[in-house]
């Protein structure tokens, strides 16, 4: 694994100088004040958490692995050709923008990566992913929060509450559109299962669903538009009650638009000279136990949404008003675990171990697959079922914290990622 280089400090100094002189970025909300002291420019880290366990072998299929076709069955056959990366790997056809970024050297793909946790629970795995601990609930603050603690660097979460990963740092803003979150089709389906033995609740829910699908419910109050509900700390600008007694909500199709808007919004904050140095975004719904190849279907839709969100983010960070923001940006796309290598009985996959992660941005040394590939044959798998983890995700975090955000190795070892001293730094960033 690569060695870190001493001249990174110089690079950051140059970036600060450049941004102090050359950036007259248009602030979309000039009146908004952000937490933390203004340090114009500087590196930008965007952490996007894919909750539910993204199937890494669907997003980044190892087409060249001899065991791939047999193990994946129908999941290995795509409606249109997968987008080739190298002889072994490809990208899912629903990820064209990412493929372009890969070709431009802006995307590095990690594979067979994961956390020091093997029990396959969403809750516990997400707790480890965000806390940076080596087991669930060993730490109750987040690795990114602890990395920024004690500094005046700003962080921002694009959701109503401060996520665990940012807890531990005081300079955290949250931003979310002022509509209530849409419950989403996945949640409704789960509620329907929950109400199997409760007929009154089940029929009320079914009726509500029907009314919504028919579009006969009241129109959403904030359809498409994003009322900035920006506040500092834990709070979210949404208030209900008197002004919204009708209680209208967005239709089920809205999550896509909401996610894209959120990515654009994040970009708009990140390009500000006094914008956050770390931003956290969530994209949920990756728990694809069934119908993974259906198009439209939950997984394919989500991959398209991921692709479109990252494209929107890049567009925002490369716009004329953004100056050199994209060159100062690293985007980390991670999930709590991968899924089983083999297809299950419902054309999906169950909770697994190793998976894929994406590192993109103008500061990334991309166009590469970063992996110590363990192979997909049954004997090569973890416990005979999962892609084996050969790269600890914390090594990625460590690399980005030290080499991109300039957090001191001591702070990383002692506070942000305790127990990570033995993890190597990875060759991910342009020097």
């Amino acid at each position, binding site marked *: 694994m690569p060695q870190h280089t001493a001249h990174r400090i110089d690079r950051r100094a140059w970036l600060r100088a450049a941004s102090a002189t050359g950036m007259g970025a248009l602030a979309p909300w000039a009146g908004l004040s952000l937490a933390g002291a203004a340090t114009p420019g500087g590196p930008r880290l965007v952490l996007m958490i894919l909750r539910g366990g993204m199937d890494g072998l669907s997003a980044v299929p190892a087409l060249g692995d001899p065991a791939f076709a047999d193990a994946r069955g129908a999941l290995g056959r795509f409606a249109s050709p997968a987008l080739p990366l190298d002889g072994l790997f490809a990208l899912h056809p629903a990820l064209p923008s990412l493929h372009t970024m890969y070709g431009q050297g802006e995307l590095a793909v990690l594979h067979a990566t994961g956390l020091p946790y093997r029990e396959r629970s969403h809750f516990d795995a997400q707790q480890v992913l965000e806390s940076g601990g080596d087991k669930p609930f060993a730490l109750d603050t987040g690795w990114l929060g602890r990395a920024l603690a004690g500094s005046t660097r700003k962080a921002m979460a694009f959701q109503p509450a401060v996520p665990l990963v940012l807890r531990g740092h005081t300079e955290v803003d949250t931003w979310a559109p002022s509509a*209530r979150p849409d419950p989403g089709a996945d949640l409704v389906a789960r*509620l329907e299962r929950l109400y199997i033995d409760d007929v*009154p609740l089940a029929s*009320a829910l079914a009726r*509500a669903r029907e009314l919504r699908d028919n579009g006969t*419910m009241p129109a959403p109050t904030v359809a498409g538009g994003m009322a900035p509900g920006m506040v500092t700390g834990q709070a979210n600008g949404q208030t209900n*009650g008197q002004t919204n007694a009708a*209680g209208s*909500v967005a239709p089920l199709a809205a999550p896509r638009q909401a996610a894209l808007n959120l990515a654009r919004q994040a970009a708009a904050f990140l390009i500000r000279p006094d914008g956050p140095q770390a931003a956290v975004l969530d994209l949920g719904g990756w728990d694809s136990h069934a119908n993974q190849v259906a198009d439209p279907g939950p997984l394919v839709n989500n991959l398209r949404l991921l692709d479109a969100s990252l494209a929107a983010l890049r567009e925002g960070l490369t716009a004329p008003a953004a100056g050199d923001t994209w060159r100062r940006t690293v985007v980390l796309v991670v999930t709590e675990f991968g899924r089983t290598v083999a297809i299950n009985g419902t054309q999906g996959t169950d909770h697994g171990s190793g998976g894929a992660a994406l590192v993109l941005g103008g500061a990334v040394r991309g166009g590469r697959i970063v992996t110590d590939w363990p192979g997909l044959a049954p004997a090569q798998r973890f416990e005979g079922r999962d892609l084996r983890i050969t790269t600890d995700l914390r090594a990625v975090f460590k690399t980005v914290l030290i080499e991109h955000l300039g957090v001191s190795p001591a702070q990383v070892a002692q506070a942000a990622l305790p127990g990570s001293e033995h993890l190597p730094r990875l060759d991910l960033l342009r020097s």
Partner: protein
Amino acid sequence: MSPLTQPDPAAAAAIAAHRFGLGEPDLALVGEDARAWLRAQIGPADPQRGTGLPGLAEALARQTAARPADARDAKDALRAQVQADMRARLVTAATSTRPFAERLALFWCNHFTVSLGKASTQGLVGAYEREAIRPHIAGRLVDLLTAAVTHPAMLRYLDNHLSAGPQSTLVQRLGRRSAMAAAAAAAAASSGAAGTDAGPASTAPRLTGLNENLAREVLELHTLGVAGGGGLYGPWGGYSQADVSALAAVLTGWRGPRPGGPADATAGTEPDFDPAWHQPGPKTVLGRRYDAGPLALRAVLADLARHPATHRHIATKLARHLLADQPPPALVARMAQRLTDTDGNLPALYQTLIDAPEAWASAPAKLKTPEEFVLSSARLLRVGEQLARRAPDAGLAALGQRPHYATSPAGWSDLASDWLGPEAVWQRVEWAAQAASRQGAQVDARALAQASLGVLLSNATRQQLERAADGPQALTLLLMAPEFQRR
């Protein structure tokens, strides 16, 4: 199971916490003896939490100050006070260590509803609940009834401050004055004077007599129950229109504090009673004769509080609130009998309920109202302190139950069918998703479900929680699970 047998302790703690209380995050709080935990809570409700919560006099002053159209600051102050009252109600219930007492206070506030939905009650409901209901929930029924009916907020809510005896000195005087004005107008008209606006319409007295609103609701809602109601639970009602009119006459003069300050405190006077509005002469209510004066109302209310139909009505409503939309008739009969035997001793009524084996059936039968759902969610997540920080109603208006704004004097419904509309359920899902998006990442919903619901947690729900895609989704599912939506 006889009333003396103990319910299964594991189930009992969960039932005590959720059905009798307002939900707990951890059943260990209830302890070994669930009935003892409940018994120890019987007593007046605790003072509400909040600072600067006004009493009636202060609230009335704010209301008066806010009346002029251009009194912007005063209107803001009144609005702020209404919000503070709302917050106090919610935060107190969401943080109380005596949730059974809080539930009873909420029940009685609803039974004796005063709503902010009328101009005359603006800003008064918080003071009403603090002064008329909360101190009296564990005394005698007659004291609670009297405090509620004679509180100026109730008097105004049900128009009694506008009700005058047809033969009262006030109406007589107004009648003479308007007769003189009419005569003067007639004289002016016959002498050919033009341009007068003293037409017949403006000379008619504004007040000529009774307003029966409060009298009818006292009989129909607060005491005997609507005539023909009761059904399975024994007859309610038993009053006639003549009884309503007679009670309205008894009520005349009860108007609340007079603008010039309280009346002289001589013997036989009441600060909220204005003799000039009172209908003179004796009245007969339910066959009993009451002499004129303020004492008559207290005597009528005492007799109503002693009436078996009142006991059946209240026993039915309390059992319906606590146990089931159609509570077991035998239990309702025992509760009513207990009220009769103890001359309306409310702790004895609650004790009968706690002792009743029917109350400990393990299947949760009651759907929570929106307010109960929100309160129990806040308690589950231990965020009661912050509950109404963003919005004073904690989102309850969108759920169809804005606190202090009941849509009728009958209060909010205690029947599931009234809360199970598709939009209402959808709003609950959204409220739950919102709460979960704020709290879910920090909470292990699986452990919380087990600690809070214990044996009430079904395997099916447990499985769905295990399978949830992330923390917020799991918490949403827990909040929306049948065993949390019901109690």
